[in-house]
């Protein structure tokens, strides 16, 4: 694949995983079909996630659980050591369909964007608690940062290597998704949303109400001092 800037396009997927022994192998296998390199960051799992993720091209392990934002950053830092142009982030819980990766990368290259967000809001599979939390955080992001993103908590995104310096997040937790949106607005980055399919396997994992409140608190903090 070649970009419109005529450089050979090398894509790398970064997948953070915490206790995902049931899903990670499938996510890695499916993702490998669409990118050149797959990096899995095991964020201190206590189950068999490391064993199940052996098919990843690069496997990194945090010795203790640090949070999704930190794990993703470790993976992206490692990806930058490779000769990659595009970095794709997706969750390790099989929530995202790796088959959507070409859609995201395609939009990034063809529309000459800096970052592309996979938007879950166009399908109705999301549990109502997440749907309400997402709506609330999106409205907050709109009011606080003038964002037009309709799914502020999406973990499925693709961005150019050069974009990372402008969106480099400090949050170690789930707040990182909102922080990226804040930085996209602050740096006037070209962005677009692409509808993606999602499937929710486990109700008690992922963002909780407490996480939602923390994200909102962080957003207020960034608005005032960010």
């Amino acid at each position, binding site marked *: 694949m070649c970009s419109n800037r005529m450089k050979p396009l090398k894509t790398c997927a970064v997948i953070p995983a915490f206790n995902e022994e049931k899903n990670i192998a499938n996510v890695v296998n499916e993702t490998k079909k669409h990118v050149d390199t797959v990096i899995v960051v095991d964020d201190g799992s206590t189950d068999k996630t490391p064993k199940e993720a052996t098919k990843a091209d*690069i496997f*990194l*392990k945090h*010795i*203790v659980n640090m949070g999704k934002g930190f794990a993703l950053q*470790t993976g992206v830092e*490692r990806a930058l050591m490779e000769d990659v142009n595009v970095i794709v982030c997706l969750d390790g819980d099989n929530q995202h369909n790796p088959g959507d990766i070409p859609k995201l990368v395609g939009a990034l290259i063809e529309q000459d964007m800096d970052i592309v967000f996979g938007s879950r809001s166009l399908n109705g599979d999301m549990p109502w608690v997440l749907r309400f939390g997402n709506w609330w955080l999106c409205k907050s992001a709109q009011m606080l940062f003038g964002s037009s993103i309709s799914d502020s908590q999406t973990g499925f995104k693709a961005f150019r290597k050069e974009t990372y310096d402008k969106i480099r997040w400090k949050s170690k937790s789930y707040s990182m998704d909102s922080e990226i949106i804040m930085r996209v607005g602050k740096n006037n980055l070209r962005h677009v949303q692409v509808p993606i399919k999602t499937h929710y396997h486990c109700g008690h994992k992922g963002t909780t109400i407490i996480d939602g409140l923390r994200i909102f608190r962080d957003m207020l903090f960034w608005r005032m001092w960010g």
Partner: protein
Amino acid sequence: MILGIQIVGFVFSLFMSYLTFLYYRRGDYRFRDFGVWMVIWTIFTYVVLAPNSFGELLKPLKVSRLMDLFTIISFIAVLGIVFYLYLITRRNEDKINRIVREIALNRE
């Protein structure tokens, strides 16, 4: 006359001195730390048992009661300790971040 609250304070001080000694014996900190904490509990015990010896401080500090004076000093001390602990926690957090990432990137 010793008041009820003084007994509570004294018992607390004895208990904390015991814990300080216990953790020192377990090797959780060095002799210097043990000494510092024992001095703190000794001063605390003195304040609890002889609060009136601080009565002369009331006028120059414009505080009407001894209890108010101790409350204010305790509040200031607690705020100082919280800030100090926050600083230490942040420093340790940064160290952990660096260690975890270094290990992850170097142990592929």
